[in-house]
């Protein structure tokens, strides 16, 4: 089984804690034991040395080495006593317990006349000892030395520490077991929750989430933070499920609307003439037009038709705003324009009448800019009137590109009974017009710079004299290059005419 991360961390902490406790208690109790045992040994050694000293006064004075030896031999049986030796008044060791000989280290050791002298001594190949020297008859008769082995102290300390550490280890094992059980009680439900949430992340909510019942059980059974967590997970999950269902419904609705809008757009586009060349039998002119719709439905339009054998009328327009209202207004404008253009001969009169028609019942406050022109095919005479639209460029035969003179009319649909003026110019063979909506000049690059009339004029200048399809293709390419991937946010509509006398 994989170790729970929570348990692993707890285990590390428990091990660290016990390590610290074990070390400090060992050091402390070892040190304490050493102090106490050493003190005890010193007093024991002192008592023993004094007792030998007291009982061997006469023997020492009589130089009775054998009896002194018999006395000291008895003391070897006492625990911790490693050696005893007795020095007489002349400094000669007259009794000792060493086999096979007296260590040379002890030959240098001396006692005090009035008190017992205690010193630590290391003897090669024997170890460390506490040497207690007691004077016999204030040193006149000699000295008694008792050696207590420090190894005995070390063994006592070692066994005490081993005992203590064994106990610690047992407590440690129990603690680990308890920690394991406790952490498991916490980590099992946590793991269960984690697994559930992971499953949740990859779930698409088209089907109900499995294991919800277990979590509900958990929320009910655990009366602690885990239970609360489970309960909040559960409510979060339900909220999520609910909101995802909402989202799905909204998305479906949006998709439906979008598809309807697309249909509306298709319908809108289909009311514009899309077949070029439009009048293949007429060789007096050449005409081409395009509309590049933006993502949303917009309000641009163009149109043209032959009023009679000699007159070609054409228009381009742009409804204010975007979306469905603009597209409906555009459809209305284009339809009314067809009717009005047939009804009146003069362009200013057509615009004035179209304006009045559009103003009537125009509660939505929408308006439209329109340029309207009539080309007399036999003479090249062009009558035109402008209703607030961008002025088309005249592509003259000697290479000059310039906007037409303005007729000064305002946009249609704003107010009734506005008068429009018309102007007339004459086109010679090979000359033409370029009509466009503000989608061209207001096309933006990524840094929000406008394409501008200046760039459009330069572009037209380069291709002057070419066929309308070529002119438009060039202009659109220039716009596309300029935008360089920036999103198109308005319809781009163009219409170009070239007059070719028979």
């Amino acid at each position, binding site marked *: 089984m994989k170790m729970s991360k929570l348990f692993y961390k707890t285990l590390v902490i428990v091990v660290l804690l016990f390590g610290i406790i074990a070390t400090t208690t060992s050091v402390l109790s070892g040190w304490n034991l050493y102090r106490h045992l050493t003190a005890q040994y010193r007093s024991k050694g002192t008592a023993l040395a004094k007792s030998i000293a007291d009982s061997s006064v006469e023997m020492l004075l*009589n*130089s*009775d*080495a*054998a*009896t*002194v*030896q*018999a006395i000291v*031999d*008895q003391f070897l049986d006492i625990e911790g006593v490693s050696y005893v030796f007795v020095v007489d008044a002349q400094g000669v060791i*007259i*009794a*000792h*317990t*060493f*086999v*096979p*000989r007296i260590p040379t280290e002890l030959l240098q050791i001396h006692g005090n006349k009035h008190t017992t002298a205690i010193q630590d001594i290391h003897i090669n190949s024997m170890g460390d000892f506490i040497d207690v020297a007691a004077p016999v008859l204030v040193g006149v008769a000699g000295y008694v030395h008792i050696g207590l082995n420090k190894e005995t102290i070390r063994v006592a300390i070692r066994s005490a520490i081993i005992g203590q550490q064994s106990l610690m280890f047992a407590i440690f094992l129990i603690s680990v077991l308890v920690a394991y059980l406790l952490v498991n009680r916490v980590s099992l439900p946590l793991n269960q929750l984690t697994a559930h949430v992971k499953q949740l992340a990859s779930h698409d909510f088209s089907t109900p989430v499995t294991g919800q019942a277990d979590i509900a059980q958990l929320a009910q059974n655990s009366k602690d933070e885990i239970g609360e967590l489970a309960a909040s997970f559960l409510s979060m999950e339900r909220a999520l499920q609910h909101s995802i269902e909402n989202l799905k419904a909204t998305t479906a609705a949006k998709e439906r609307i979008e598809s309807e809008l697309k249909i509306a757009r298709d319908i809108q586009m289909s009311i514009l003439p899309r077949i070029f060349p439009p009048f293949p039998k007429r060789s007096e002119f050449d005409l081409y037009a395009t509309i590049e719709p933006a993502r949303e439905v917009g309000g641009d339009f163009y149109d043209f038709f032959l009023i009679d054998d000699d007159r070609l009328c054409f228009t381009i327009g742009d409804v204010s705003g975007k979306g469905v209202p603009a597209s409906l207004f555009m459809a209305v404008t284009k339809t009314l324009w067809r009717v009005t253009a047939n009804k009146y001969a003069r362009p200013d009169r057509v615009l004035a009448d179209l304006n009045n028609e559009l103003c009537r019942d125009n509660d939505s406050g929408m308006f439209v800019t329109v340029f309207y022109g009539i080309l007399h095919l036999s003479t090249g005479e062009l009558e035109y009137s402008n209703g607030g639209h961008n002025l088309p460029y005249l592509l003259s035969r000697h290479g000059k590109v310039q906007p037409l003179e303005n007729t000064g009319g305002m946009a249609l649909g704003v107010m009734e009974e506005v008068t429009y003026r018309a102007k007339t110019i004459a086109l010679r063979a090979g000359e033409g017009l370029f009509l466009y909506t503000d989608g061209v000049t207001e096309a933006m690059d990524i840094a929000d710079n406008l394409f501008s009339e200046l760039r459009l004029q330069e572009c037209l200048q380069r291709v002057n004299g070419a066929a309308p399809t070529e002119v438009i293709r060039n202009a659109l390419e220039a716009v596309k290059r300029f935008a360089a991937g920036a999103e198109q946010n308005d319809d781009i509509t163009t219409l170009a005419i070239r007059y070719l006398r028979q």
Partner: protein
Amino acid sequence: MRKILVTSRYRHWLCVLLFLCVPRLVHADDLVIGMSAAFSGSSAALGIELYRGSMSYIAHVNSTGGINGRKLVIKAYDDRYDPISAVENTITLIERDRVFLLFDYVGTPTVTRVLPLLKRYSAQSVSLFFPYTGAQPQREPPYDAFVFNLRASYRQETAGLVEHFVQIGRKRIAVLYQADAYGRSGWDGVRRALKKYALEMAGEATYRRGATSAQSFREQVDILRHSNPDVVVVIGAYAASAAFIRDAREANWDVPIANLSFVGSVQMLQLLRESSQAQGKDYTTNLINAQVVPSYEDTTFSAVQQYRDLMDRYDPRPPADLVGEAYQPLHYSFVSFEGFLNAKLLVEILRRTGTTADKAAVKATVEKLGGYDIGIGTVVSFGPDKHQGLDTVYYTTVQGDHFIPISDWQRWQR
């Protein structure tokens, strides 16, 4: 008695009963004396042979009418040459067995520790007769009053050895001694003797009491050899002495090695011969052994003749409750001869004391004893201030399988 029951097995019941009923039967008018000695352990031969020597004479006395009609019985306990056991045995002998006197104790560390007990029981006038030790404590106040010695002291033995060695130019004398009161006695004896010639001990080393002959003495050999002595005096028991001699000779060190009487010369020689045979090397050259009794081979002495005769006749067994079947008794030895002499003198003293006499009278009798011929060419005499019967030390060396008296020290001249 309890000891007998404990150590006996079921199948030995019959033997034990016979043993209890026939020879050891103690009658109310028997004269019981107590003995504590090594009957087991590395010095067992000392206690056993001392007992056998004494028993050869006691058996003879008992079979010829006893002492003034009373039989003499030795009540023996094993102390394994251990001082504490010796003290316990002594208390048992005095308080429970109510022995008439103590006799034939073996060893300095044991006897030295028993001495204060004698003072403790002085009201009962229990004296210790002829312990097998030459140590000083029982020859000096305050304990000399409770002890009668027959043998010469270690001081006399060591003084004699030192004197002879100095005379032949061997002045660098080193000592190997048992780390206890016995060893210390001998060490002290050598030191005192050297002092007379303004000499210092050349070197010294010790060994632990109870050392066996299997033990290595290489360390002691190295220590002593390093001090470059002319002679080594060993204050030890036979097992340790034999081991030391073996290791010294194995190290090609042929320095003369002297031993005291306590060593148990014959047992030592026996051990050396055994290892000599095993190694194919002679370990028995340049050995000098001090003795406190004349050689048991010297049949010009009447006591020697009687000893050999009685040993042959009675061949006393060691106490069966203390000694197993494995022990092979020595035919004759210095130790059993000393035991024989101890018994002979004790019987004489008890005879002189008379049948009605109490314990206190015994002491008075000894102190009046003067010029008694024990049969070894010197007379034994005691007095109120003289509690040691003999002062002669005999020097022997190994020749073949025997110890012979040293007639010419010049062979070790340098």
